[in-house]
């Protein structure tokens, strides 16, 4: 039993952190909101591909690193910390492995190398998910139809945009019709792969939520150290201290739950659904609490649109609701532990 990351994994995290601190500043996140643009940065996406992040889970044979969720989780945490708006979860965490697991060699060879190289973005539309994020930028959409996985190019579907409270997120309803020509896989194996895809997505956003929460706590700590009222830094008031301490406790206990879920997805898949649901429940609640504490401790300034705080806060609200919210995942844990 050893519950810690390897030096290589930590080094990779530090590299990605350094890149994002330089290339994914608050201004970059704000630019992703611009309604008159597609909201995405090819340059940033290329940087991530060059580092191997995009193709991290792509088999080496197809030009990826052939690594697992355990290697991904710290990088996704950093992505959340920087409020990265690029579709790393959809393309790298969910889409690529789904192709690798379900598609024939031809399709794999056609797409995985381009994904790993940062030349192709993937979007994923699973059962019960009303919205497909970043469909507007997707070169290939992976869509569930019952027990079947279908793959369509963007030209093959109709998109209707929906506005998210987080302007950096681009949501779409996708209208499409399944056909034998679009079918990639079917039957129990496909159903199982689609189930794993959902759990990978939930795990991915859980890791991002950890990073988002961490950033919200850190920036709030910095603010309350300098903001003065009644002649003292408000960070010296016990109520403010306890808001932030509570947020930190919740985050610190969510972290190992998320890491364990990553471990199970790659080493003990049968436990994946249970452990991923715990992860999404803890990460969502921890991030929502951090957002509440951050806004309350910032006061009016945090309530203003010009301040960066809301960029992170709104990402939290969106990701806490996406891929199953906390109560949905707790209900799933309940069914697995207590029986339905």
């Amino acid at each position, binding site marked *: 039993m050893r519950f810690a990351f390897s030096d290589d994994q930590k080094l990779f995290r530090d590299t990605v952190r350094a890149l994002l601190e330089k290339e994914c500043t608050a201004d970059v996140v704000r630019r992703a909101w611009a309604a008159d643009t597609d909201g995405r940065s090819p340059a940033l996406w290329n940087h991530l591909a060059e580092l191997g992040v995009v193709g991290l889970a792509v088999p080496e044979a197809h030009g990826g690193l052939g690594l697992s969720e355990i290697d991904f989780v710290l990088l996704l945490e950093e992505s959340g910390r920087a409020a990265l708006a690029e579709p790393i979860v959809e393309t790298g965490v969910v889409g690529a492995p789904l192709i690798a697991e379900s598609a024939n060699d031809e399709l794999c060879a056609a797409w995985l190398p381009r994904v790993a190289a940062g030349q192709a973005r993937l979007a994923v539309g699973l059962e019960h998910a009303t919205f497909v994020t970043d469909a507007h930028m997707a070169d290939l959409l992976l869509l569930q139809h019952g027990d079947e996985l279908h793959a369509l190019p963007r030209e093959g579907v109709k998109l209707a945009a*929906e506005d*998210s409270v987080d302007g950096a997120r681009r949501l779409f309803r996708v209208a499409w019709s399944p056909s034998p020509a679009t079918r990639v896989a079917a039957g129990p194996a496909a159903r199982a792969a689609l189930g794993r895809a959902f759990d990978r997505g939930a795990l991915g956003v859980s890791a991002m939520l950890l990073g988002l929460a961490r950033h919200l706590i850190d920036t709030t700590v910095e603010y309350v150290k300098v903001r003065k009222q*009644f002649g003292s830094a408000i960070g010296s008031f016990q*109520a403010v201290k306890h808001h932030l301490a509570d947020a930190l406790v919740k985050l610190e206990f969510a972290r190992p739950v998320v890491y364990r879920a990553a471990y199970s997805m790659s080493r003990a898949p049968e436990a994946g659904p249970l452990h991923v649901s715990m992860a999404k429940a803890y990460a969502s609640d921890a991030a929502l609490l951090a957002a509440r504490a951050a806004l309350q401790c910032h006061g*009016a300034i945090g*309530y203003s649109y*010009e301040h960066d705080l809301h960029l992170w806060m709104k990402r939290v609200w969106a990701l806490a*609701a996406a891929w199953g919210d906390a109560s949905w995942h707790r209900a799933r844990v309940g069914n697995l532990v207590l029986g339905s």
Partner: protein
Amino acid sequence: MDLDYSPSEQAFRREARAWLQANVPKNPLPSGDTAEGFALHRKWEKKLYDARWAVVSWPERYGGREATLMEWLIFEEEYYRAGGPQRIAQNGIFLLAPTLFEFGTDEQKDRILPRMASGEDLWAQGWSEPNAGSDLAGIKSTATRDDARGGFRLNGQKTWCTRGAFCDFMFGLFRSDPAAERHRGMTYFLVSLSAPGITVRPVGRLDGDAGFAEVFLEDVFVPDRDVLGAVHDGWNVAMATTSSERGLTLRSPGRFLAAAARLVELYCQAKDHADPVLRDHVVKAWMDAEAYQLYTLQTVTRVMEGGAIGAESSINKIFWSEMDVRTHETALALLGERAELDGGTSAEAGGAWMKGYQFALAGPIYAGTNEIQRNVIAERVLGLPRR
């Protein structure tokens, strides 16, 4: 104890309900925190005024109908029940007017109140400054005596002026005696936002609307007739309004009863597949709105019988602001993935709740943060030592 409404109260309710049913716009107006929405809301205020529903509790001479506090509560309940538009006149009516009634001269009242009630003049509050938020006594903006012109020259900066980008006037505190400290030496001024030396900078709000403004004042002249109360006595004059801001006047139960009703509706639409845990949260939210109304009826009865609203207005503020957040959190949980939809453009029910959530999150912050309110309760109601 008689928890049934009297025949006259019931008649008042019927009249209000009938008028609102006939006159409340069928389609909701665009947000009053946008330029075009503001103009439409101003028209609506005039319509309320012409029917004498704008300020029901005021004297007739200023456009009211001298309704009792209980009748005012009934009107508010009916107003929210009918889905009436947001009241952009509220900062004037609820924050400034009570102070005017208490400290204003007859000339001031005659000049200001009717135009305020009719929406011809709309008022923004000018309390906060960059370094004076919860700590209002930290105000730095100054008022310098100008004997030659018979008034004062104002300098400084005010922040978080609600709808300040669209309002006509501002009321606020300025330091008139530079020697005095903290709560002393401030004067309460009424300022035209079109006066020379005023710069208004709109500030976007969490939900994207230009809900706030920063107001910069550079040698803005204000004549003596626009001083409210005694010079240097502004703090005591202002406290009357801040306590009514914290008190029941701004937060009538009607608003929360209506929100709870919408939440129950949302739950019943989703009932079959709604998580039973959320059912309990819906029940709690519904009960809290009821409890808040009961608490308010108790307070109103006390006030009508000569009692005062003191520090317990802090108890009230903590309850409604945190209830409002919980109610919206429950709605968002019911919406699941649709919770993230933005009210701005989405037709989905979800959007309205997310916008409402962002609005609710301001509750525990403004009009004295809930941390300050808890201190007030502990120190002034329970008598715990300040240090």
